[in-house]
Structure formats: C-alpha cells, structure tokens
C-alpha cells in the first residue's frame, strides 16, 4: 500500500510539473499506475468491485487534481472504473447463468491472458448490453415490460453484488481482480496501437494529389499520413509550424524523412493557403462529449478558415482522448497558460517596465495559452480507432466507454465520506 502511494505521488508530481505531457503518454502512464494500484489493492470478500472502485477513484481524484487540463488522466480513470463495473457485471451474469464459460476463462496461465479472458469478458459484456439496452421490437409492440432486463439495469451498483457473491467468494475475488487487470492490459495495448488502427483508415480518406493542411505535431496525424503514403498515394502536406512551440518543424522533418512532399508555412499564412487545401487533418488534445475538441493553440483559427472555404476539418485521435465531460467555457477553464518566455525573452522588456508609475500594475501582459477549443460545428469528422464519426455522435460513442456513474470523480467520495 505505501508502495502504490509513493508511485501515485511520483506521478502526481510529474503531472504537476508538466513532466508528462501529451495525451498518449499521460494515458498510458495513468493506466499503468492504476493497474499497479489495483493489483496491490487488498480486496474484501464482500463488495469487491466497490472496494476497487473506491480505491481507483481516490487515486484518480489526486491525479486529475494534479493537472485538470490533462483530460486523458480523467478519461483513463473513468475507463478503468468502467472496466471494473463491466467485469463485475459479466461475472455476475456468469454466476447467474451458470455458464460453462468459467472453464475457458479460469486458467490463470500467463500465456493465454492476452486476448482470451478479455475477449470473453468483452463478449459477455456485449451480450449483456445487448440483452439489456435495446428493448426488443416485440416488447415495444406488445407493450410488455422487459421483465428480465429491467432489474439488472438498475442493479449495476452495490446490491447486485451482494446477491451473487454468496455463491463462490474465494474464486470470484481472485477472478475479478484478475479480469480487471487483464482488461487494463488490453486498454494499455489499445492506447499503444490506436495509431495503427487509425492509420489503417487513411487510404479511405486521402486520395491521389490531395493537399492536406495540418498544424503543429501529432503522432496520430503523422502515422495517418504515412500510412496513406505507404499505400502509394502521392499527396502534398502543408504544415503550419504551430508557434510558439514549433512542433510543426518536427512533423515536417518526420514527414520528409518518409518521403512526403511537405511545405512548412507560418501560422499566419493559414488563411491564405486554405483555399488550395482539400482537407485539414489535425490531432486533438481531447475530444469532448459534445463533439468539441480541445486542440493545440491555433486550431480554432484553422477550423474557422476551413469552414469559410468549405474544407473538411478532420480530427484524428485515439479513444483515450474521448472525454465524457461537456465543456463549459473551455477556452479559459480547460486551458493552460504557458511561460511567457516562449514569446518574449526574459528581461527583453525590463527597461520598459516601470512599476513605480500608475497604480503599480504592470503595463505589459503576455498571454501564451496552450490549447484552443474547436466547437463541434466546425468539425467535419472524427476518426478514432473505432472508425469515423460525426461530432454529434460523440456522446454515444462515449457511452460505450464510460459509465454514467463515473462522470464526476469527486462527487462520489465527497458524498461517501
């Protein structure tokens, strides 16, 4: 237990100091941390899932507080919570149905852990969901209440566990934790491979002689473009440099190394060039539930220009970037103000700063935000590892990954304590 606490503290400090940046790295490390938290969490005999959930939530709250802008942390915490709930439900249905599935998923060999149990859990969860959620046409037509499904849907919380746990506690306690860790492994793998899965779709979106504009650097975008290039598509990429971090230079270098025709432009030339661009492809920092995007600074401008010229604005991002929150005033509340030294050198204006004059307030402010919010109406398409989606569909996609109970991480412990 102190072991996990020190791990958590380390990570919190890293997040606070912005040592870990980028949603991919953060997501991955969060998942790994939570995995170790779960594996070391001692589970009581009753209400195991509840205990796990509480532990994860407690850690998650700390992590989110460390860097509230890094939404990937919260996303992963919620994903893990959702995994725990799903596994718990699938176990419960297993127990109720008395299925022979336990034979397949029971072996604790490490060799088979990669896909088999997770697959079974996912399959069961999917089956469970399919029995639960959409009411059958028959039920709709006849007006018969779906007697089997309704109680289950409501009993996702703590009480269903109490009933089913009476059966075989010892095996189940180990099994739940095991399954959850398996699923988290799966999640980590998903995070690592989401680039490839997104990149696979590239050929469906990029045609010959296309002109693509992007801003800053995103690994997903790079892989996406390179995948299309490997499929022998020849196209041209305009890279806006993305001041003040100039990640566009890095992207341009990488693209050129892969043999793509690349042109670096200044950010201010975006409007001038967009009329000759066929598609804007950008990576996101986070994708909000309303279909809005938290993206590197400058992209709102690009999106507006793209809308003006009716250029498709495509956002690529793995599912770990899907955030179940609805943004409120995201330009300010979900933003990070970086050091002004990126814009003006320290001391460059010290001779002009006369604090004695006036009311002592400095005459000069320097604003250097890190993110931009792109509202959903400016986004044409999201490409995630599960395929292409409309902005308006995002909330639905998010419902697949998160449980509604987890949306607010703080509230539960506050009310519980």
């Amino acid at each position, binding site marked *: 237990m102190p072991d996990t606490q020190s791990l958590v503290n380390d990570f919190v400090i890293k997040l606070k100091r912005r040592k870990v940046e980028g949603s991919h790295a953060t997501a991955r490390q969060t998942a790994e941390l939570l995995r170790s938290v779960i594996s070391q969490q001692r589970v009581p005999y009753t209400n195991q899932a509840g205990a796990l959930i509480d532990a994860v939530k407690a850690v998650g709250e700390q992590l989110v507080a460390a860097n509230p802008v890094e939404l990937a942390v919260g996303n992963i915490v919620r994903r893990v919570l959702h995994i725990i709930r799903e596994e718990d439900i699938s176990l419960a249905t297993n127990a109720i149905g008395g299925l022979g599935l336990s034979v397949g998923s029971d072996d604790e060999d490490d060799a088979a852990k990669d896909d088999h149990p997770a697959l079974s859990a996912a399959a069961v969860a999917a089956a469970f969901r399919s029995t639960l959620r959409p009411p059958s046409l028959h039920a709709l037509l006849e007006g018969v209440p779906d007697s089997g499904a309704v109680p289950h849907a409501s009993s996702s919380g703590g009480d269903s566990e109490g009933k089913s746990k009476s059966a075989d506690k010892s095996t189940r306690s180990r099994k739940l934790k095991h399954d959850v860790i398996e699923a988290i492994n799966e999640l980590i793998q998903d995070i690592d491979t989401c680039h490839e899965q997104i990149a696979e779709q590239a050929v469906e979106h990029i045609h010959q002689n296309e002109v693509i504009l992007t801003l800053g650097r995103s690994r997903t975008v790079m892989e996406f473009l390179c995948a299309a290039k490997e499929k022998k598509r020849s196209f041209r990429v305009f890279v806006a440099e993305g001041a003040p971090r100039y990640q566009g230079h890095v992207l341009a270098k990488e693209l050129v190394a892969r043999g793509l025709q*690349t042109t670096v432009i200044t950010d201010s030339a975006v409007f*001038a060039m967009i009329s000759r661009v066929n598609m804007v492809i950008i990576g996101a920092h986070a994708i909000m539930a309303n279909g809005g995007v938290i993206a590197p600074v400058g992209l709102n*401008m690009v999106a507006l220009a793209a809308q003006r010229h009716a250029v498709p604005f495509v956002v690529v991002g793995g599912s770990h970037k899907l955030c179940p929150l609805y943004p409120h005033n995201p*330009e300010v509340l979900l*933003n990070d103000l970086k050091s002004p030294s990126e814009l003006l050198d320290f001391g460059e204006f010290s001779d002009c700063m006369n604090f004695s004059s006036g009311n002592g307030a400095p005459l000069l402010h320097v*604003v250097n935000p890190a993110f931009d919010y792109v509202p959903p109406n400016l986004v044409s398409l999201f490409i995630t590892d599960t395929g292409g989606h409309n902005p308006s569909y995002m909330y639905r996609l998010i419902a697949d990954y998160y449980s509604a109970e987890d949306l607010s991480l703080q509230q539960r412990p506050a009310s519980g304590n």
Partner: protein
Amino acid sequence: MDSRRASRMVIDPKPKVRQVGFFTPGAPPERTKSSPAESLSSPPTSDMSPAGNSLSPVMIPPPRHASDNLSSSLGLNSSRVLPVPVPMSPIRRPSTGDNLNLPLGSYNPSESLLGTSLSPSSGFDDEGLSEDTSTSGWFVRGNPGKVASSFPSGGFDTTAMKSRNIPVVSNLTTVSHLLTKRKKGGIAEKGGTLVEVQHEQVRDSKLKEKTSKAERRALQEAQRSAKAASRAEGSKTAATSGGVTAANAKPAKAKASQKKEGSSVASSDRKGPEKDRKKDVPHPRMQFDDKQRVEKAKRRAVVKQTEARNRVELFRHLPQYEHGTQLPDLESRFFQLEPMHPSVYKVGLQYLSGDTSGSNARCIAMLQAFKEAIKDYTTPPEKALGRDLTAKISSYVSFLIECRPLSISMGYAIRFLKNRIAKLPLTFSETEAKATLCSDIDRFINEKIILADKAIVKHAVTKIRDGDVLLIYGSSCVIEMILLHAHELGRQFRVVVVDSRPKLEGKALLRRLVSKGLCCTYTHINALSYIMHEVTLVFLGASSVLCNGTVYSRVGTACVAMVAHAFRLPVLICCEAYKFHERVQLDSICSNELGDPDVIAKVPGREDVDHLENWANNENLQLLNLMYDVTPSDYVSMIITDYGMIPPTSVPVIVREYRREHLWM
C-alpha cells in the same frame, strides 16, 4: 456592356448628364416608335438592340466622349469621324470566297487586325490593304449579307434588311463612290466589302510600334477619306429624307451601329470609355513561370539574382530568389552602376536588406530618392526632358523592383510622378521643370501620406471609447499614431498586440507603445481565439485595398479579421486612399510576395528549434514565407481612409471618382 452603353450614346441625341441611380431612359422608346424599320429589324434579343438597352444603375459617361458622340450623331459637321458604315450595294459584291476567311464575329480587336493584315491572299491590292490595316485595328471588311448571316444570335434577316435598307444603301453606295475617287482606286476593287471606318483618338501604343511610316501615311489618308465619307453621308441622308429632321438620320445610324454589333466586330462604340478605362486597368504583372520573359528580365537585371531552390509549386509565378546573395554583390558594384543615382541605389539596398518596410515608409523613401535624382538631373543634349526623365525613372523603378517587388502604394506614386512629367508644359525650362516636379513630389508625400494619416487618425479616434480593448496586428504606422493620439486624449483603453512569425514586427511596436505608457497585452496569432474574448474593437492596417473591397495586407491579417468576425467584433481597416487600387483579387495565391524562406527555419532566441536545418538539401521539403494575404470584404466592417469612413463596397467609388481627379491634379 460597355460597347452597348456607348452605342446608345451614339444614338441618343439628348445631351448627356450625370445620371445616377435607377431610371428608365426616356428617349429610346420614342425613337423605336418613330422608326419602325429599326424595331422590326432589331434582333429578338433585346440586349442587342440599343433601344431596349437599359442602363446600369450608375452611369457616368466621361463628358468628353459624350459630347463627341453627340455632335456626330446629330449629323453635324464634326471634324472627328465616328463609326461610319459604308455598306456597298450587294450587286457590286464580287462573290469571292476569300471574304470568308476574314475574321468575322471576333470581338478581339487585335485579332481582327491580325486577321486583316495577315490575309494577303484575299486578293486586295497592297495599297488598299495597307490602308485598311493602318486604320487601326477596328477595321472590318466583309459583305453585309455575310456579316449578318454569319452572326447567328443577331437574328438578322438578310433579305428583309436589304429591302428595307434600299434607300440608305444606295446613298451609301454613292458615298462609297466618292470615297473611291478620293482614294485613287484601290478600294474599288474590293467592292461589296463592308468597310466600317473607324479611328481612335487614343491609339494603342502597341499599334503605334507596328505601323511603319508608310502605314502612317496611309492611315492619315484613310482618316481623311473617312471624314469625307461621314460628311457626305450626313448630307446625303439629309437630302434623301427630305424635310425630315436630323433625328431621322439616327435610325440609319442606329441601324448601322446595330449591324456592327451584329457583326460583332465593330467595336467602334467601345472606343471612348473603353480606351479610357483601359488605362486604368493595371498592367498584367510579370508571371515568373513564363520562362521566356524571365530570361529576358534576367538579362536586363542589375541585381544578381539566383533562383531559390525548393520552390513551392503553387507559387511558381512569383519571383523568389536566394536572399543574402544579392546584397554583398550589389554593394560591391556600387561604383559600376553608372546610371543609378546614389540615392535610388541606397533605397534599393534598404529594400533589399529589409531596413525600410511598410508601404508608407517605402513609398516615401522612394519618392525622396527620386526627388534627389531629379535635382541632380540634367537633360542630355538633343533630348527632351519629358521623355528622358521618364525613361530614367523607369530604369530606377525596375532597379527597385529587382530589389523588392513594388508595393501597390509605390505603383501609384510612380504613376503620379510619370504623369506629372508628362504633363509638364513644354515651355518650361529645365530648372523650372525640376522645381515643379520636386514640389509635386513633396506635395504628394504631404497630401497623400502625412495629411491623410492625420485625417485617418482624426476619424479613427472617434471610435475609441473608454474601457475599450483594441486588438491590433502587425505594425502599422497609422494605427500606432491612432493609439498614441487616443492615449494623449486621455482615453482609457487597453491594447492587445498580436504578433506573428517570422517578422515579429509587433515586438517593436509593443516596445514603443509600452514606453509611451499604454497598457498592452502581447500574444501570438495562434492565441487569437483565446484573447478575442476580451477584445471590443479590432484595428488593422493595410498594404492596399482592392476594388472588390478585399484588403491586401500583411499575412495574418485575414486570420485576425476572420476570428474577429466569428466573435462578432467590428473590424476597422485604416488605409490611406492612395493605397487603393483598381485591381481585384480573390485569393492570396495569384498575386503575392515571397519572403526569404530561411527565416522560417530559424527561430530567433530559440536555439532548441533547429529541426529544419539544411532544409534546402531535401527536395521534398519546402518552406513558404508568404508576405501578404487577402482579407475578404465581408470580414471588414469599415475602412477608415482620408476621405472618411466607408464600407468596403465603396472602395471602387473612391478609386474611380476621387482619385482620378487627384492623379491629374
């Protein structure tokens, strides 16, 4: 449109007044009634007929041409000859096939010229041919029947026309006899050709080059004969129509002009306004993807220019040279550049090194240099001051262009100067002329730039209220003046200085503003949508405002205007009226300026950003440093100029109405 409008002027006997707004032309319907022949023969498409032609909402014909047209259309003995159709009687037409290869139905005057001059096989004797060609371009030969039938949309009925036209035609035949006599034969052989004589008051310079001495003589002759023909026609028509007033002469003329339109070649009507407007139309710019012309320009070039490597495909038509190589080269050749005046040379170096930037500063620097050059100028023996000085200025200008492409404001200043030189009275002595020119230049700088800026500041300050947060972009001197003036007036406001790579001009401006005690916020262009929440008003400078209301300005201005528009903020453009230009532009690609691409690879003060070192070695990688962009007019709320505050739709009015007079001042 133009041709039609002009043709109407030919017909309309009423004196032209400035007619603005929507109105129905009173005269045409009456005339249509009075001459049934015309209405009958008028083609079904109403826009072909001059009578059914409604005017454009704003029609301000240049008075000079209007009066010319008027006098001749009334059948008076005008010394100038207007389109005079001389249709020969169809009987005398030799039915040769060679008429067919004449360019009928071509709207392009140069084409028709080409057609006539390049058809020696058409069986005309040389004299006649040369006469025709020299009568400048608008010449068309062909038989009336052919013309009419060869024009499908005209809907002419040849036979009907003939029958109705008989009196006129016969008259004209006699005219043609007269003509033939005067011309000592030559035309007689080409009987049956419809000769529409027309000459222009203002002759194409291109054409002038082409005409040889003999041709010029022939031209004069043709003009004389045409004059005679018109006179004869006037009298004859009057005679045949008996007691009918001169107004009756019109139908014939209308008919003729209409026929010309039908034959689509006549273009006589285009003459006046068209010619005049042609001067306004800016010269086509040099396209640098045209290899031949680039080669030619290179041979003349003073500045040694090496083509940049790794050029962006989309911008092949713009010049892009290796920067850094020209400057030392030019400096070393300081004493070899014989014809270049040192002050001009200095300005060129300043342009090249980027020490002088901003269109006002560049324009003033250039004019001052020209002033120096004019002061030191002496007319070489056996040369006229006007011609020689113009040539000299032209060479200076081309030198400056090699250093950096001209800004639009400079183009206007150069035009102004050349105009002044051209308008110098011949009686002036050299010293007088030089003094006049110098004072003209001073007046231009003073009135068009300095006073204009003052006027703009006066207008713009009224828009700044206490508590405003003003967003400015880049570094515009007039906007700086506005802010400082408002600060002096004691207005309480904050300024957001938005800057962008690679020039980072905002830093210098920020320094000046902060040192004056203004409260400033500094940010990058990428953070626009973050900072725009606090802003209440956006002030932008412009390099030029084009006739369709678009604003041609420092790259990034369009982005700022767009984001401000998205936030429903007013965007005020401050621009002196001398920077307005007749050109129109829709995108930022067709006309722009390319800066040094190397500055993109390097970020000053950020050594860690060195990913693009040696970028030129990879042919897949290009860096693009655009200098300007074009802001669509719908993002612009208002343009503040020295004539006042106008919407972007009123730019052409300023350009056409106000500036015209000032150019000729």
